[in-house]
């Protein structure tokens, strides 16, 4: 827990002090919402909010290890004899606090802009908050695999977007059902189950991928 908190604090501090980097995912999300509204012109479902959040997520998570890789911090983390698990979870949670959570908080506004509906806003925020954490954990696997190649970007998107599908399905389903007043318990619980699975399994895969990437 101490390792988790230390890493979490460190990442948040770095992100906040480096200025606009921290706000980029959120700005991208808003900008994409505007473009979608202009291009498609209303009459959209809540599913598109999920797709936008997903794209914002994959664009943000792609570089989550880049800075640490460039200045050698990553290598130092890996050669410590301490367990890697809390460090990785702390790092990714901090990343999620700055990319996923703000997007989730702003999503009812985006939903209102695109669909004109405000029903189900609470469910949308709840599912996006859970969903973006699961996405960040999954996406970090792709980011870790490609960090040493110096070319993430599209490659990370291609690698991890197929894995995002279950989260998208349950999240979009819960949001749409909430907007229509249908029962939402099952998709929300399924999403929570996915999150629990990601939270326990993905950090190991990330750790393994980072170890592979740092072995020259």
């Amino acid at each position, binding site marked *: 827990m101490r390792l988790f908190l230390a890493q979490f604090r460190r990442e948040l501090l770095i992100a906040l002090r480096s200025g606009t980097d921290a706000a980029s995912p959120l700005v991208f999300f808003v900008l994409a919402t505007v473009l979608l509204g202009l291009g498609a012109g209303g009459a959209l479902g809540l599913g598109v909010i999920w797709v936008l959040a997903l794209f914002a997520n994959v664009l943000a998570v792609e570089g989550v290890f880049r800075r640490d890789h460039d200045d050698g911090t990553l290598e130092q983390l890996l050669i410590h004899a301490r367990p890697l698990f809390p460090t990785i979870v702390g790092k990714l949670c901090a990343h999620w606090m700055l990319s996923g959570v703000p997007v989730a908080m702003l999503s009812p506004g985006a939903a209102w802009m695109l669909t004109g509906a405000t029903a189900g806003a609470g469910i949308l925020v709840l599912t996006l908050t859970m969903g973006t954490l699961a996405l960040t954990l999954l996406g970090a696997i792709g980011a870790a695999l490609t960090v040493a190649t110096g070319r993430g970007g599209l*490659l990370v998107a291609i690698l991890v977007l197929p894995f995002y599908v279950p989260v998208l399905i349950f999240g979009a389903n819960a949001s749409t059902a909430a907007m229509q007043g249908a029962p939402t318990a099952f998709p929300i619980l*399924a999403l929570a189950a996915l999150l629990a699975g990601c939270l326990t399994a993905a950090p190991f*895969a990330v750790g393994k991928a980072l170890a592979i990437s740092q072995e020259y």
Partner: protein
Amino acid sequence: MIGLYLVGGMLIATGSIWGLGFVPPERLQGNSVRILFIHAPAAHLAEAIYVTIAIAGFVFLVWRMKMADMLIQAAAPIGLVVTVVALATGIIWGIPTWGTGWVWDARTVSTLLLAFLFFGLVALRQAIGRPERASRAIALLALVGVVNIPIIKYSVEWFTTLHQPPSIEIGKRPAIAPVFLWPLAVNVLGFYCFVAGVVIAALRARIVEREAGAQWVRDWVRAS
């Protein structure tokens, strides 16, 4: 290897001629059912190749056998081609029978995502460049992928049972009559043999490529 090509080619020829020429038209779908003899083997094979790759990935990560990595390298592009064949024939078959080439059901979506997974395996290897590091990253990616395939499949299945009228399943999975089953079985076997031959040929090319500096390769090149 030549034997596998021959056996596979003969079986595919037998099964296809049997299926296309001698099987009676199906009661509901008419002649369009004949694409089954290409579509089903390709779809089966696509998943089988991915499972093979994942097992090879596990073998490589645990025991560091170079052969397992070369198998992944050889099989991934072939798997991509087979998956595309399965998707294309599925779309062609879907247009006359379902009235639409594409439906968002579990099988079609998971097969399409399988194509992206194969593509990712190929793309990641090219991006990393250095073979020894690429091999471990790809083995890990293959393992992560194989954990995800059932999750993707079941999530889409649940999603579609809620949203799609089951009528679309008409004729999709009937209990197949023996008259269709036999040529299909022959073709499945033929596809397996033929693709195994192609994978082994590609694997041999990889082995020679990686061991290019070794003495036995030089001797072999000189002898042949």
